[in-house]
């Protein structure tokens, strides 16, 4: 089963290399840089993001490019390592002369790249990094086309309470994101009259979660809210069910991804993902995107693929409206964005945070994530 999947990253890298070669030949092109993790621990996720971005680039060029010129995405590997991401961004800005920059996936890397973008006065946009602090730094060149954990908590709080939940337990991974999930959702749920009966924080490398799960079982919650990546997510789902915890499991992270579904099997039934994107969103734009993605890469797009797709589109749209590749003009056009994409309408607030788009609750039913509810990110 695995051979085509294992080939996909190679094919993607080859595609990226070809795009690079093309950029070097024609200098009149509109060249945008991207720093994605294509090696290291998040290489698979980064690759799916590049796959989505590549579809957007090809669609834009098929429709005549940007400003009448071919649109080029020049990709560098940042490996989700801040130091490597910074040198990748430096290289893209100073050697390739990109007009704007996308990435760098992990919040710590994006936080480092945004300093480089500010130094050179180049617009920078992320579609994945969720650390709240990024948009609090007052960097006018930075835009975030995704929700933060606290925005997601705000959007989902009522839907969670409407599902008949009042006592929640948290089971989250021990990093900034996991702790932010426990804090943000905890305060939203307490404001709405619910209570937090247990908060368990496990290490990313831990596999046996029975001790934490036993504590959760002892607290008898109405629902378990989690934050976990693929492997932790599958482990905690299986172990909650094996210890006889039958209440709903809801989580941020990989709870709707194919890799998670493959690992967790039938134990994943009824688990609810709190996510920015699911392939089963019912709209013609999304259906076309999913069809193209599956035909190219032989697997369903991840939320990162979708983010790769919409960030490229938002950036290309801004350059087109700016009418030039002048960084300040692009920055002003980005700030005035009004883009309709896979997950609704994107606009940017003063601090560069996107709003107005839709986020989803997706429940796994017969092994497929199915949208059961949604929320809209309000204007701050």
């Amino acid at each position, binding site marked *: 089963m695995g051979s085509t999947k294992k080939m996909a990253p190679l094919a993607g890298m080859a595609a990226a290399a070809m795009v690079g070669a093309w950029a070097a030949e024609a200098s009149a092109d509109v060249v945008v840089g991207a720093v994605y993790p294509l090696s290291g*621990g998040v290489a698979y996720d980064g690759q799916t993001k590049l796959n989505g971005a590549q579809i957007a680039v090809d669609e834009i060029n098929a429709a005549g490019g940007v400003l009448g010129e071919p649109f080029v995405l020049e990709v560098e590997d940042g490996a989700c390592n801040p130091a490597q991401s910074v040198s990748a961004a430096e290289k893209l800005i100073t050697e390739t002369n990109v007009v704007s920059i996308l990435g760098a996936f992990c919040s710590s890397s994006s936080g480092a790249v945004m300093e480089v973008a500010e130094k050179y006065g180049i617009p920078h946009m992320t579609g994945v990094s969720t650390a709240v602090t990024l948009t609090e730094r007052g960097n006018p060149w930075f835009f975030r086309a995704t929700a933060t954990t606290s925005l997601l908590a705000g959007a989902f709080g009522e839907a969670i309470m409407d599902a008949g939940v009042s006592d929640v337990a948290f089971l989250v991974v021990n990093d900034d994101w996991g702790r932010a999930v426990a804090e943000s959702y905890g305060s939203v749920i307490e404001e709405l009259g619910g209570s937090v009966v247990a908060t368990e924080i496990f290490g990313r490398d*831990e596999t046996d979660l*029975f001790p934490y799960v*036993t504590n959760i*079982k002892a607290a008898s919650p109405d629902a378990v809210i989690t934050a976990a990546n693929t*492997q932790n997510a599958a482990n905690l789902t*299986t172990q909650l069910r094996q210890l006889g915890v039958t209440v709903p499991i809801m989580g941020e992270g990989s709870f709707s991804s194919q890799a998670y579904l493959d690992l967790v099997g039938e134990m994943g039934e009824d688990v609810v993902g709190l996510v920015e994107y699911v392939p089963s969103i019912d709209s013609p734009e999304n259906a076309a995107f999913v069809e193209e993605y599956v035909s190219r890469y032989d697997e369903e797009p991840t939320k990162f693929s979708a983010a790769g797709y919409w960030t490229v589109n938002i950036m290309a749209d801004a350059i087109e409206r700016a009418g030039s590749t002048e960084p300040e003009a692009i920055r002003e056009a980005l700030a005035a964005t009004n883009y309709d994409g896979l997950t609704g309408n994107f606009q940017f607030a003063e601090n560069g945070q996107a709003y107005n788009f839709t986020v989803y609750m997706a429940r796994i039913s017969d092994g497929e994530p199915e949208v059961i509810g949604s929320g809209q990110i309000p204007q701050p």
Partner: protein
Amino acid sequence: MIEILPQYLFNGVLVGANYALIALGLTVIFGLMNIANFAHGQFYMMGGFMAYVLTASLGIGYFPAIVIAVLVVAAAGVVLDRLIFFRLRAKPLISSVLVTIGLSILLENLALLLWGPKPEAIPSPFSKMPVVLGPIFASEARLFALGVTFATIAAVHVALRYTRWGKAVRATFQQPEAAALSGIDVDRLYAACFGIGAGLAALGGALLGSIFFVHPTMGGIATLKAFIVVILGGMGSFPGAIAGGLLLGISESLGTLVSSAYKDAIGFILVILILLYRPDGLFRRA
């Protein structure tokens, strides 16, 4: 809380038996052969991936796959001993530390290259549904791993205590020169022991890989826990590895009753206390 106490104890025994199994192999390699094997967790990882490849890719049954996985990694251990560790026998401990750290990086990246970073599940005939034993919830895979672990521990113990070969092993590690003089093929025995140590780690990986998942970086934490257990139990002592593993597992599990965030800290405090009062560990070298 009291009605759920048996579950905490059972969790501790499960984790502890896992620790003991991984530590058994290291007891042979580190405790007896004096090779500080920092690649031990990577043998464990290789065992998991071998079982995965044999079942998921080659379609071999789960039980034979575990046996083959253990034999393949054990054979690799024998080859590594003849190629590398043979040359390090009279060298200071630091040489084996450096070589095995290098080996661990090599094996981890080899696995990353061969199988990619995505975690994989080993297909097994076990149901994932809970098994309820009175107040305790478990799963078939966990109970199977527990049974195999205790059977393996008993088998290794009997082999060392009561067989002619076991006597030769014990003689060699007490006094290699005298053992060689009395006709024991010491080089072959060292190679066999390294193979057994690697094979025991692989068994741990194959069993735990079917409870959880296998992925290239699963070895690091296994190495760490194995060293703690071996030192806690007493270098080279089999009963020590078993008691040390169970003690660490149960204390971590009961620690979560106090605070799950301090679970690991409680385990380490216990290790420090025991080593303060018994610097040689729980059991002295046999």
